[in-house]
């Protein structure tokens, strides 16, 4: 098993994935690049900067009026016949779903893909109540069979190649080892169709919830979400409190922007707009619909003056696809539901800062994520913010902290700095070895560059002549 069970295993799991599973890196990088290419093409067809401004402003409006919209949504949902629940924590959210299932003697649950249910660990919780949980998104189904967590917000199985899937289906269903992808998909369709027809309860997340009509909006391509929310007699939607939009019409911009950013499509091939349970005169649909508003760290994040903008996230995965760090390992290294850049700034809010270490440091701060975020979350700045908080809370390795303090002291004293740099230059260092053993977390996974044989200022002098140096010195003295 190469996936991390918690963020603290990030470094070890990354190394394990790169060493033991070389095909995973190929699969992840290829899938991420092609998703990013599709996003780029889809963005080029529209006035993307205006769309991003609009979406940023809409989400910021909602987040600065969230109490009002939550109350409006609750009122409208109840009018629509929906049962509304509130959960402060992951445990409470799981307990709400379990109690609905137990009251109705539910034996089998079909699930639409939902990152929130991954965040709160719903499947494991329901299974402790003896309830059979079936993931129905094809990618989620594949990783459920493999016993793996999702490795991407949008494409949970993108770390698995066609051959991996062929082997899995051969073992489980006896399909030939060279079966075409269509055969594998048809096999999954047949198996899961029975589950759809027999399940008593369908569980979904929500991409958005329109407060004024109480509409749960869900975007997908397979049809499993429409079926999961239409066939079973009960539907439970878990909705993060940040998912609201004010009006039904606001869904137009948010759905199209999310689809273009996530998969490069103008819209998902299926969008569900759900108002409540089956009404008189309608041929089918669930008799009961429940909405569970889940906080689980979101209101605390909203209170953070710097980091609250994280809550604009629409979970499109664009920042994962473009991230040079994510592309090396995929999501399994990160040790929790949300990987990549957005995961690293969500983790401190949802898991706690200490439990998130070292994810805010798992980035080169190249800034690409900010360029592709459809709701303009300043991800690199927030990574730095959480790093500063981590240092202030003494969460970085003690030797590294000491070394950084020593370096800061040296850097303020030119004579001492020069002497120390000469010392490093002439120390007997193994080529490619660990130059500064005190910075264990930095050098543990990296070779060190060879120190230059000359001081920088001396090289400058040799290249540009003494006149430059004296002018620089003159300037310094004049200050």
């Amino acid at each position, binding site marked *: 098993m190469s996936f991390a069970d918690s963020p603290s295993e990030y470094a070890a799991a990354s190394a394990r994935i790169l060493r033991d599973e070389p095909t995973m890196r190929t699969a992840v990088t290829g899938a991420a690049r092609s998703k990013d290419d599709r996003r780029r093409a889809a963005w080029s067809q529209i006035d993307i900067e205006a769309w991003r401004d609009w979406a940023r402003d809409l989400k910021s*409006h909602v987040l600065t009026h969230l109490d009002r919209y939550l109350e409006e949504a609750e009122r409208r949902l109840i009018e629509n016949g929906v049962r509304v629940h509130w959960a402060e924590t992951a445990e409470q959210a799981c307990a709400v779903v379990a109690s609905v299932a137990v009251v109705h003697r539910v034996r089998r649950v079909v699930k639409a893909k939902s990152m929130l249910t991954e965040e709160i660990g719903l499947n494991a919780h329901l299974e402790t109540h003896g309830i059979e949980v079936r993931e129905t998104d094809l990618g989620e189904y594949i990783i459920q069979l493999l016993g793996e967590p999702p490795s991407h917000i949008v494409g949970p*199985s993108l770390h698995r190649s066609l051959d991996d899937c062929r082997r899995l289906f051969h073992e489980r269903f006896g399909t030939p080892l060279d079966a075409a992808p269509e055969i594998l998909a048809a096999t999954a369709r047949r198996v899961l*169709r029975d589950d759809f027809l027999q399940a008593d309860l369908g569980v979904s997340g929500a991409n958005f919830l329109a407060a004024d*009509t109480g509409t749960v909006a869900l975007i997908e391509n*397979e049809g499993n979400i429409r079926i999961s929310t239409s066939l079973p007699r009960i539907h439970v939607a878990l909705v993060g409190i940040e998912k609201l939009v004010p009006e039904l019409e606001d869904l137009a911009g948010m759905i199209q922007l999310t689809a273009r950013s996530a998969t490069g499509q103008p819209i998902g091939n299926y969008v*569900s707009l759900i108002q409540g349970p089956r009404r008189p005169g309608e041929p089918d649909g669930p008799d009961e619909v429940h909405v569970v508003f889940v906080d689980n760290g979101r209101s605390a994040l*909203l209170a953070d003056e710097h980091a609250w903008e994280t809550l604009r996230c629409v979970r499109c995965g664009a920042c994962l696809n473009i991230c040079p760090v994510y592309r090396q390992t995929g999501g399994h290294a990160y040790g929790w539901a949300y990987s990549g850049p957005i995961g690293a700034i969500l983790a401190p809010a949802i898991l706690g800062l200490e439990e998130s270490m070292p994810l805010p440091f798992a980035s080169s701060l190249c800034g690409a994520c900010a360029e592709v975020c459809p709701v303009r979350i300043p991800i690199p700045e927030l990574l730095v913010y959480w790093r500063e908080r981590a240092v202030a809370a003494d969460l970085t390795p003690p030797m590294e902290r000491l070394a950084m303090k020593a370096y800061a002291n040296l850097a303020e004293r030119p004579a001492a700095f020069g002497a120390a740099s000469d010392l490093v230059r002439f120390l007997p260092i193994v080529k490619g070895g660990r130059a500064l053993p005190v910075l264990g977390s930095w050098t543990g996974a990296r070779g060190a560059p060879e120190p230059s044989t000359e001081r920088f200022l001396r090289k400058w002098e040799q290249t540009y002549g003494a006149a430059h140096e004296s002018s620089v010195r003159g300037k310094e003295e004049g200050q």
Partner: protein
Amino acid sequence: MNSRNRILGYVRGATGSRRRLAHPGRFDGRYLLDDDRAPWERFAEMFSAAGGEVERFGTEDEAARWLVRFAEGFESATVGATVPSRLRPRVPLACPDLAALGVSVATGAIAETGSLVLDARDGRRSQLLAPTHVVFVREKDIHPTMVYALGRLRRDLPSAVGLHSGPSKSADIGQILVRGVHGPGRIIAAVVAS
């Protein structure tokens, strides 16, 4: 205090002192301003690009004759509750999870995204479970934008609306595109001009 009041209290506390930001107004795709085609033309282009098929008929009679011929290739069909009798295929009816063909009527369509608007009052199973799906839509009900279509929808919302913009598809197996994973792998929008 229950969870509801506590969460609302936290949210109020969190935003109490923050500057309130205004709603940015109605979403406007803008690029459509350059598109002077009829809505059905853009709808057809978008729907086809997503893998759907489009047939266009001058009259409902033409559409009905086409359906009779088209349905001959199918053993059984499931038909939505709001499909008028003349647009029902002349093949044996079957329950939705066994039928080879599904026939529905859309209450509208969206040119901007190439989407058919399917209403729960027509029946959801017949829209979702058959491998092939024929959806009739009147050309005059094809709205230019999604904002406009949602504005129309809000006047009379059923328990659920499905926007279907192409066949069921997935790339979850090795990033290779396959159709018909859970929903219909083939969807035909039958546009009736009058």
